[in-house]
Each structure stands twice: as C-alpha cells, then as structure tokens.
C-alpha cells in the first residue's frame, strides 16, 4: 500500500475544502448548473437516473482493509448499504445526496482516499494488473510506476480540460492483465539487453462506439523519460484532439485521422523539446516511492502444503474453487485468491456494506491487511498462505464470495446499465442474471472452460463488450431494448507463449481483438437461448477441452456460429419447447 506523505495528504485535504466551497456556491446559486457540472464531474459526481452517483478512486485497484471499512461505513451511512466495483478498479455509490458529498470526501481523506479525476475530461484512475507485485511473470512492480503517473496526472494544470476523458493502463508482467491495448495510453514494462527498465508505449486504443486496438508508437522508452513522453503525447492531444464532436474527441480518433506514423512524428517532435527537461525522472524518486509502499513480510514457507494437497484430494467443491479462484504466487507457500463478486442473483461487482466489513476482516487475517480490485470487478486477496486456503474458502463461501467461476462464463463483466445509468439504451444486470441462471450447473460451466462474457448497456462500452469472447450490447430500437451479440473479442493476454496454471500452454493467448457482430439483435428474453446455442456450437467443434471458446472462434470463424444461431428457426423453437417442458 502506498502511504501518503504530508504533501500527498495536504493536497487531498485542500481538495476537500475546495470542493466543499464549490458545492456551497452551487447550492447558493452562485455557480451555474453547467459550470458546477464540470467541477463535480472531476470529483466523481454524476447526476444519474435516480440520484447522484459518486465514483471513488481506488488508485490502480490497491486497497487497504481500513480503507475498505471506510467504504463500508460510507455505503451504510450515506448510501443504501452497498457499493459497486467498476471496470476501472474504482467503487461507485449509487444513492448519495449531493449535499453530503463534501462530508463523504472529508471522511475518505482520513484514510488517504479521494474521488479526484474519477470522471470529467481529465486523466482518470491509472489501472494495472490485479496481480502486480505477486505474479510469477513479473518484470517490474507496476504499482510503483502507477503511483509515479498518478502524481503526475493529479491536478496537472495543463491537462485538466482535455478534449475528452483519458485512460492510462500500465502492465508490469509478461502477460497483459491490464487490457493495455484498449486504453488511450497503454504502457508495457520491458527490459533492454542491459536489464534497464523501459516501457513499450501504445496509444489510441479504446472501446466505446469506435473500438480500436492501440498502436505501438515507441518500442522502448527508458524509464527516466516516462513523464516527459507522457507530457508530449498529452500536449499533442490537448492541442489537436477534436473538440467539435464528443463522439470523435478521444485520442484514438486523432490518431486515426492523422495516421499512426504522422501522429508518432508529432509526439516525437514535441518530445524533443521536453526530453531531459526538469520532468525527467530521477532514481531517487523511484526509490522514494517504492519505499513508501508497505510490503508483506512473507514467512519462509515450503512451496507445497500437505494439508492443502489432502484437502484438494478429498473435497471436490474446494478443489473446484481452488482451480478457478486461486492463482500462483511468486513467493513459495503463498497464493492469490479471487473473491468472486459474480454470484448469480447479485449484480456483478456489487458488495454490501456488511460484506465489505467482513472482507476487510479476511484481508486482516489472511492477506496482510490489503486487497485489490480487478478490472473484471472481483476482489483479490493477493498474499494468502497455502495452509490458510481451506479456512479462507469456508469463510468466503459463507459470505457468498466463493463462486468458483473466475475465468468462466458466469464471471460476467457488466456495466450498471439501464437500471441506474442515464446513458444506457438497455438494462444489463438482469441480462447477466438470466445468463448466470441458465448456466448455473457448475459441472457444465467448468466443462465449457475459459470464457469471458461481457455486457454493456450502450455503445459507450463500460462493460467492455468488444473484448469479451462473447460480447453483448444493449441497443435501442424504437424505444425497445434489443441486444446485439459479438463473438471473437479478447482483452489480450500476451504476445508470448505462456504456461497456464497446470503447465498447459495457453493456446491462442494472442493480443487484444475486437469481437464481430453475429447478426441481427435479439429480444432480451432470447439472449440466454442464444448464448446457449453459441456454447453448443463451440462444444460440437472443439477438438479437446484445452481448446477454448475463443480458440474455436479463431480457428473456424464466426460463420458456423452464425448458422447455428440463426440457421434453423424450427430447431430453435423446438429447443425452447424442450426447455419449457423440462422446467
């Protein structure tokens, strides 16, 4: 956990005072709706369908148990007793009162938290790999670099009114677990031949209504130049990004209109002026930030645990959970545990205040008082002893947080959708729930294997539907909710062959890919049927259980799936009748 120093704390406290005064002026009629809008947004406050929505920053997804307790307190005191973890590793409260927000921010500041730049046309929360610092394939600890960038981006005077929001993701491992190819800027840590750390710089990726995979504009940027290079990219964007049309204002459009090569030249030309200037990083600063992170004091443990092995052999339910929700750790004797927030019947990413308190207890007892939020909207206890796994599993199960579905179809990424969001064309949470109910049989779910299913309620794509193996998009047709289905998307794992958990090569890891629409949209009630048809088609075609859904789509293309879904209407009807009969 990064611990604030006096200046970090002072800036957050000053922000609370500033925002308190802005709210006061707004309520007193001294600030127009429009002017206050820009100010409240860069403090995470939206006015939504039912009430304001407050988005609190969880920088790079790293959270201390005392902070989670504060979030529980806020959910219980100012909201309706729950919060929603978002795909940007933040948390959202859906029912706070506008006039309470200054007080909420003051309470957050007491645990080194804030809502700075969680919305608005500014640099947003920096996201990263939820296994940073513990992954076996680590190149650098990306948290340190995320904090360097967080400080650079916080209240950056030049880049506070960009053409549009700006999202940066950092990946510090071989595998890309931070979806860097679909960010405005993606940074991959790499080492050169001398072992010096640098970054591969990708620009112009993004989802939304124009999904684009980012372009590499620099293969190796030595770490000292990180901030001057970011300054150069942001300056080119701030000056030349489109401001005439909100839908064309992201950096990906500038990049597309200029062409990647021309864009790269402009950035490099700007950088020549900034390179080696005062914003050039120094090793003292990296050391200083690194030292402000608390680190777990790991015990020296054997790499295996006999008790765990015995429990895995004896208890199938535990073994299922272990297989899906436990990941290897770089320190012998430890593992990273994912608490699933994707239980059927609960909106994906939602947690109650009581659960938050109990999860904080689990973090205290089992994982050095820390946890992480993943962009897949789950919580991670990253440093659990192998010998504690069974006890932790039992407790997590009693809290409803041990659904063994990580990486599987029911681990759905889902935006709040039409139930909450004023932008949405259609609901998404009820669709997720209907699919989860359809695939409630665990054996079947595990047999289907790894599959990312993502749902967005509109083309703004907060649910990352373009990069789901199956992506579902809510669309509006004459005031009715319809759902378009894509297959073949991928959030991108790695350009390198990597061994999976059981030593099996993760076939077709590959980079990020965007899904293709399979055909005309469906009514809401038909969506679970369509998903089931896609799965049946996959199971018919896969050559072994190691060939995942996405691998089959890549191998045979989308046509066979299309035919299977649309081809035979009679078959579909009879299938539905069979199901009704069985129900």
């Amino acid at each position, binding site marked *: 956990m990064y611990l604030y120093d006096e200046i970090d704390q002072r800036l957050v406290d000053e*922000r609370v005072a500033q925002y308190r005064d802005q709210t006061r002026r707004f309520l007193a009629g001294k600030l127009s709706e429009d002017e206050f809008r820009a100010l409240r947004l860069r403090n995470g406050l939206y006015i939504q369908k039912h009430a304001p929505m407050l988005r609190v920053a969880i920088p790079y997804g790293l959270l201390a148990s005392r902070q989670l307790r504060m979030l529980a307190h806020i959910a219980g005191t100012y909201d309706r007793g729950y919060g929603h973890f978002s795909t940007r590793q933040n948390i959202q409260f859906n029912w706070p009162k506008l006039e309470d927000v200054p007080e909420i921010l003051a309470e957050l500041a007491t645990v080194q938290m804030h809502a700075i730049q969680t919305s608005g046309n500014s640099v947003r929360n920096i996201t990263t790999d939820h296994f940073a610092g513990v992954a076996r394939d680590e190149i650098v600890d990306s948290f340190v670099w995320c904090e360097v960038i967080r400080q650079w981006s916080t209240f950056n005077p030049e880049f506070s009114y960009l053409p549009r929001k700006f999202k940066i993701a950092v990946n510090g491992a071989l595998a890309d677990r931070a979806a860097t190819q679909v960010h405005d800027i993606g940074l991959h840590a790499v080492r050169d031949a001398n072992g010096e750390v640098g970054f591969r710089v990708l620009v112009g990726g993004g989802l939304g209504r124009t999904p684009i995979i980012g372009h590499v504009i620099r293969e190796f940027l030595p770490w000292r130049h990180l901030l001057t290079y970011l300054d150069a990219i942001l300056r080119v964007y701030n000056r030349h990004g489109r401001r005439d049309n909100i839908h064309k204002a992201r950096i990906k459009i500038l990049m597309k209109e200029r062409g990647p090569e021309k864009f790269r030249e402009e950035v490099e030309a700007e950088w020549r002026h900034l390179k080696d200037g005062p914003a050039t990083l120094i090793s003292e600063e990296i050391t200083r930030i690194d030292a402000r992170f608390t680190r777990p004091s790991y015990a020296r443990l054997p790499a295996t645990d006999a008790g765990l092995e015995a429990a895995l052999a004896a208890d199938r339910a535990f073994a299922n959970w272990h297989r899906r929700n436990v990941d290897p750790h770089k320190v012998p004797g430890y593992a990273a545990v994912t608490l699933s927030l994707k239980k059927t019947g609960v909106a994906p990413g939602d947690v109650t205040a009581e659960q938050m308190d109990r999860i904080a207890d689990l973090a205290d007892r089992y994982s050095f008082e820390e946890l992480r939020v993943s962009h897949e909207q789950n919580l991670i206890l990253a440093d659990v002893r192998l010998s504690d796994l069974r006890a932790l599993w039992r407790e997590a199960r009693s809290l409803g947080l041990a659904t063994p579905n990580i990486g599987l179809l029911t681990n759905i990424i889902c935006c709040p959708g039409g139930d909450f969001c004023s932008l949405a064309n259609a609901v998404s949470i009820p669709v997720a729930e209907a699919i989860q109910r359809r695939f409630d049989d665990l054996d079947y779910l595990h047999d289907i294997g790894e599959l990312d299913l993502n749902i967005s309620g509109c083309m703004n794509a907060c649910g990352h539907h373009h990069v789901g193996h199956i992506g579902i998009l809510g669309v509006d047709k004459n005031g009715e909710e319809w759902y378009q289905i894509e297959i073949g998307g991928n959030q991108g794992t790695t350009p390198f062959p990597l061994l999976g958990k059981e030593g099996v090569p993760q076939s077709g890891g590959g980079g990020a890919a965007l899904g293709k629409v399979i055909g005309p949209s469906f009514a809401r009630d038909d969506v679970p049927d369509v998903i089931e048809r896609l799965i049946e088609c996959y199971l018919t075609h896969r050559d072994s259980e190691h060939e995942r859904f996405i691998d089959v789509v890549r191998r045979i293309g989308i046509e066979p799936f299309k035919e299977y879904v649309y081809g035979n209407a009679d078959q579909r009807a009879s299938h539905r009748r069979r199901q009704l009969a069985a129900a």
Partner: protein
Amino acid sequence: MATLIKERRIVADNWRLLEPDATEAPAAGDVIVPLALWQAQRAQLLTRAGRLGVRLEPSEDPAAIADDVGLFGVVAVNFPKFGDGRGYSTARLLRERYGYKGELRAIGDVLRDHLSFMAGCGFDAFALRDDQDPQDALAAFDDFTEAYQASVERPLPLFRRRALASPDGMEWS
C-alpha cells in the same frame, strides 16, 4: 468591463481588446489585436502610437508569434468556453518554449475555479468573466499550496524539489 487581476491584485485595465474579426486598429491607445491583424498589418501596427498586444484563439499556434514575443506588452489567450483547455498548452509554450516574459492574460470564459490551473501554466493576468466575484477569485490562487508537476509556476517538479531538500542531494537527469 471585466475585472482584471494581475499578479494577484485587482488592477485597472487600460488595454482595448479587439474582436477576433477586427480588420483595423484604432490610431492611438494601448490595443490588443487579433493574430490575423498582426500578421496583415505588422509594419503599420509597430509605428502607431500606443502599446501593442496580440490575442490568440484556441486553434492558433503560438509558434506564429515565436519571433515577435518581445514586441508585445500583452499576449491574451482566449478561452471561448472554460471547458476548452487548449489555452493551457498555448500558455506553457509561450513561457517555456518561446521565452515570453511579458503579461500573459487569460480572456473569455475566465472563472474562479480555473485560475490556479491557469497560473500553473504561466498566466499572470486574468480578465474575469463579468459575473465573477473578484475577491472570491483572489482567494482561488491559494486553493492548493503545492503541486506535483513541473509547471511555469514551479519549474522543478515536486520530486526534484524533494530531492534537493534531502541530505543526499540529487542527481540530474
């Protein structure tokens, strides 16, 4: 007439600001002309009585006056809407790349809550929008007492100033 804050004080403003489409400058008096007029009538403007300033719109490249910055008493950067942040980059370029040392004035939709960002980018004069409370605006400069980044106000980023203050000294680049 808009209140002018300069170097954190409310001051009288003797400059006449021309509109972006103005095609001629008055014969005398201090005047701020649009870039196009400066480019079209450079010689005439330099011989008229009174001081001269130029105004830049968000889309206008400050490189266009890079060689002339010593000739102006004011460079005014327009913010037609407060949400259009191009003027922030324009200001930094004028100060840091083109070496402009004179009055750098924010004009247009200049609101209390953006003054500290503007000051960070090198503005030292602010023609407040008419409805802004000048006393309230003066307080805005103290909203934040520190900043992380290198800026015109603080040429060294916080991390270098920290390193300077530390007993081990610091390493450059």
